[in-house]
Structures are given as C-alpha cells and as structure tokens.
C-alpha cells in the first residue's frame, strides 16, 4: 500500500514515515506543504494521503483545504487528516461529498501505532475513520432531533462505532454482542435513515454523514 504524507514538522513526518514503514506500508512521498501535496498525489497516485491540518504558509486550515483540493483533482482519493484538534465543522466538510475514504483523527492517535495503521488501511479501502472525540462530542450534545431521533440508544451506539470506522465484527467485540445482532442493528439504522440497499460501504458512509450532519 502506497502512502503520501503531508506534515510540516520534521520530527512528526519522520516518525510517521518510520512507523508506517514498520507496519509494512510504503511511503511514496513525504512533503511539507499543500502545493507539494497536490503535485505528489497527481504524480504518485497513492492509495491514501495522510495530511496535517496545519501546513505552511498560513498555518491555519491549509492542510484541510489541500486535502479537499486533492480529492477534487484525484476523485475518490482516500485522505486521512490529522490534527491537534478535531472540529465537527471540519469533519462535515471532509465528508460532504459522500464518497467515503475519509479519516479525521487527532494526532494523539499515532501513539497507538497498530490502531493507527488499521485506521489508515480502513480509509485506503474507502471506509471512514472519525476520531472518537468527534463522536463523543456529538453524542454529548445530540438532542436527538431529525432522523436520528428514530434510532434506539443501542442503534446509536452502533452508529457511533460505525463512524469511528469499525467493521461489524469489531463493533460486536466492542459492544459485547454477537455479530448477527450488529448486522440487525445496522440494517435497522439504514432503514430508519432511509438509505437504499446498494453498495454496503457507501451506505455506511452515508449513515455516518447523517450522524455527523444532524
């Protein structure tokens, strides 16, 4: 699996490169700004791009905008955005095109290298990896209006796990229920959110989008 990294801090860029290589991923390019990222993704056509939100020259949300631009240039390019902070606003912008292959994680998550590389692989495979903190803040403030109001508490738990990017098997393990029960819950979620049975992965993304979009 080939990865492009955009991270301006040398230590982190270097650390990420070594960690991903140790887990058997191949680093196609490691750049330190948004412009180079665009060039790298068009030239290398990687399986996934890992992008820091804060990049030069503005050190604001340059990386986020570069990631969105990269996805416009290379449609369907899986992008994992790393940030010191997670904002629901940014999560929504990333997911807005509804095609999946999006990750949005706190930089802290790289501390757990195996979970982090799992997330990278999930995103590369077209899934989502939303940071648990985005989910936690959502759940803490969700007054349950709109379509989500119809979901049972258990279904919401399953949806939250889905948003973090877990497979049915992983969700089953997490919530200590059978995989069959998870499948039943996801089917109910899709039905209640009025998501037509089509490509399963895409429905998962749409469900997450409904979750984040409130």
């Amino acid at each position, binding site marked *: 699996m080939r990865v492009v990294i955009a991270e301006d801090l040398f230590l982190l860029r270097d650390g990420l490169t070594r960690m991903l290589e140790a887990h058997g991923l191949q680093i196609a390019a490691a750049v330190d700004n948004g412009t180079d990222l665009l060039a790298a993704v068009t030239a290398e056509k990687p399986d996934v791009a890992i992008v820091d939100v804060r990049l030069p020259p503005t050190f*604001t*949300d340059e990386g986020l905008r570069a990631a969105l631009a990269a996805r416009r240039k290379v449609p369907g390019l899986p992008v994992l955005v790393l940030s*010191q*902070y997670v*904002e*629901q*606003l*940014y999560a*929504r912008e990333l997911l807005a095109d509804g095609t999946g292959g999006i990750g949005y994680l*706190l*930089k*802290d998550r790289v*501390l*757990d290298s195996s979970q982090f590389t799992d997330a990278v692989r999930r995103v590369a495979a077209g899934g989502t990896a939303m940071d648990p903190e985005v989910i936690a*803040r959502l759940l803490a*403030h*969700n*007054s349950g*209006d709109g379509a989500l109001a119809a979901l049972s508490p258990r279904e919401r738990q399953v949806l939250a796990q889905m948003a973090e990017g877990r497979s049915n098997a992983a969700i089953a393990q997490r919530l200590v229920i059978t995989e069959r029960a998870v499948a039943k819950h996801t089917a109910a979620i899709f039905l209640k959110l009025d998501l037509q049975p089509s490509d399963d992965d895409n429905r998962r993304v749409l469900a997450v989008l409904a979750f984040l979009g*409130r």
Partner: protein
Amino acid sequence: MSDRTMTPGAAGPRAPRGARWSRLSASLIASGRGLGLCGLTLAGAGLMLALAMPVILAGAGIGIIFSHGHHGAGWDVLFSPVLLLAALVTGRFLTPSVLLAIRGLAVLTRRLCMEWCGVPIADPYRPPPGGAISQRLSFRQRLRWLLADPAALRDALWLTVNACGGWVLAAAPAGLLVYGLLNLVGGNRGHPVVAPPPALPGDEPLMLIVAGIALISLWLWAAPRLLRGYGMLARSMLGPSGRAELALRVAHLAQTRADTIDTGAAEMRRIERDLHDGAQARLVAMGMTLDAADHLLDGNPAAARALLAEARESSARALAELRDLVRGIHPPVLADRGLAEAVRALALDLPLRVDVSSELTSRPPAPVESAAYFAVNELLANVSKHADASQVWIDTRHDAGMLRIGVTDDGRGGADPARGTGLRGIERRLAAFDGVLAVNSPPGGPTTVTIEIPCAL
C-alpha cells in the same frame, strides 16, 4: 441602547406642499409640548426655591438679630432662633431629597428634549460607584455620588436659567397662537380684546385681523423651530461640557483598563494552574513510570509493558488537557476561519437548533474577533443553562463601523444583567473595546442579547 431616532415628526423643518394639516398639527403639538416644558420650569423653580430655603431662613434669622439687636428684646428676636433651627432642619432633611429631585428633573428634561424637541442630549453624569450595573445604592451613597459630580451644579444652573427666561422659548409657540387668535377675535368684534402689538399702528379691526393672520402664520412656521431652539438651549447646559466629556472618557478608560488587567491576570493564573495541575503533573508521572519500567525491563517484562501502557495513557491525557487549555485561550477554528465560522462551530456543539447567519465580508481585528467569540460562547452557554430554549438565532453583521452580533432564543426570558455575573463579565470584557451589551428579555421570552463593538473591517 443605541436605537435613538433623531427627528420626531414635530420637528420636521419643511412640510411638503399640500400637507398643511400635518404642519398645523405639528405646530399644535409643539405648542402643547412647549406648555408641558413650562410646567417642568415651574417645578424646577420650586426645587431651586426649596434648595435655597435653608439659606433664606438662616439669612432671615440672622437679619432679625442684627436689625433688632440694639433695640432691646422684642418678641421677634425670640423668633430668630426658631428660624435658624428651621434652616438647620430643612438643610439636613429637605436638601438631600431636593438634590435628588433636581437630578430627576434634569434627566426628565433630557428625555423630553429628545422625544419632544428632537434634540438628543448625552448623559453628563459620572457612572455610579461600582459600575453601570450595580446593586442599589443607599440614600447616603447616592447623595455622595450626586454631589461629587460637577454635572449637578450645571443641572442647578440650568433650572435657574430656565426659570429666569429660558421658558419663554418653550412658551412662545402657545403664546403666538393665543395672541394671534385674540387679535382675530378682536378684529371680528371691532375692538381689541388685548392691547395690540406695539409695533402695529392703531387698533382698527382690519389691522387687528392682519396682525392676527401674521401672528398665526408665524406660529405655523416657527412653533416646531422654537421648540427645537429650546432643546438646543437645554443641550448647551444639560449636555456634558467638553471637560466633563473628557473626564467621563478618562474615568471609563481607567475603569476598563483596570478590568482588562484584572481579567488578563486572572486568566494567566488560571492557565498557570491548569498547566501545573494538569499536563505538567502528568509529564512528571510519566517520567517516573518510564523510569520504573526501565528498571523492570529485564526482570519482569510483563510488568514493564503494563507500565509502558500506563505511560502512554498519561501522555494521551496530557495532550487532551493541553488541547482543552488551548481551546480556551484561542480556539483553532477562530484562528483558521474567523468569527463567522467559529460561531458556526460553536453552534454545532449546542444541543439546540441553531440558526447562524453572517454578513461579514472580511475578518475583524484578531482581538475584537476573540472578544466577540468568547462573548457569544458565554451567551450560548447561558442559553443552554438557563433559558430552557429550543431554538437560537445568531446574527452577525458589520455596519457603520460597528460589529453587531445578536443572539436570540425562544426560551423563558427574564434574564437580568444586574443579577447574572455572566452577563456582567461579558460586559466588562467588551468594555475594553468600547463594546456594549444590550439585553432585551421580557418574562416569557424571547430573549435577545445584542453585542456591539466598534471596529473597522
């Protein structure tokens, strides 16, 4: 707070052709209001008399002693101590109330000048001790505050000038009308009802009618103007003098500067404490755990691994705490995207339906942006804590050199800035930018809080 309309209908200088009736009614209204202002003059004269009462009584008492001192003891000499005592008693018990009443009358005059004469007059008074919104002052505190203010002297001066001649301007519209009508009546009857204007030759009926028509035309033209003139006269004495204006400004600046420094220092202390108790302590613990793991590495690898996991946990928590801390100092979205988007991000975190609209074309200066952001943050926290609302509207705009943010909720209302320390705190922090906060919250709602900060875009 700032929605003052500048010109009420009565003072409109030029009525359009064919709108004679509106001009007539404007002049009639102006005459009536002028008479009302004359009523205030009477009250003012009475107050000045009451203010002078102790001096008059004391003067009379002393006068009696001096004029009768060498004639021997008459009964009126016995009367003089009574007068002196009366002077003392009125001075002690009546004068404070009179002073308060003078302030009240001046405040009323200012309001009427605005509403009736179309002349806005700024408040010249120093703020009461303890800030604009404060607990009720005791009578004594209020009096001390009143007396220390040079504007009190100007108020008294205005009452005197007004009583001595200023009222003529206010009474003139009604006077012109009555005199004109009397002349017309006189012309009709064939002999004058009152003495004709001295400038007119003779008192023939024709002359009287001409004079009456002239006077009433003059009245029609001049009545609102005369009233406006009265307002200007009042403003020259009741408005803040240049000195007073500067003094007010200096007092305001000193107050807000002190508040800003206090807030800044408190914030620094909070950050220091958070770092000390949070991230710093966790890093120390992490170092110790790593050290312990180092010792265990050869003898008991399983225990060492457990300690390493603990250290990693500690580092994650330290990071989380640093993140929260930074969010409280300068929120990343605000830095990245500016006020409008940051407010939108705040709205997303709220367990309510929030409608955010923004008409900002560019970003205000960073300190203003930050102050506005934290003010909105606090207001939204208030809404979700106290208002029992289901929907919030946030409206951000910039016009006429003023950043305006309105936060409206459909909650139960009854928010009182005098009681809530939150609103008070926001107001204090906004004051550093000459910003203001206006609360409109009738019981039963809805509540609208408007923030205004002067700034250029």
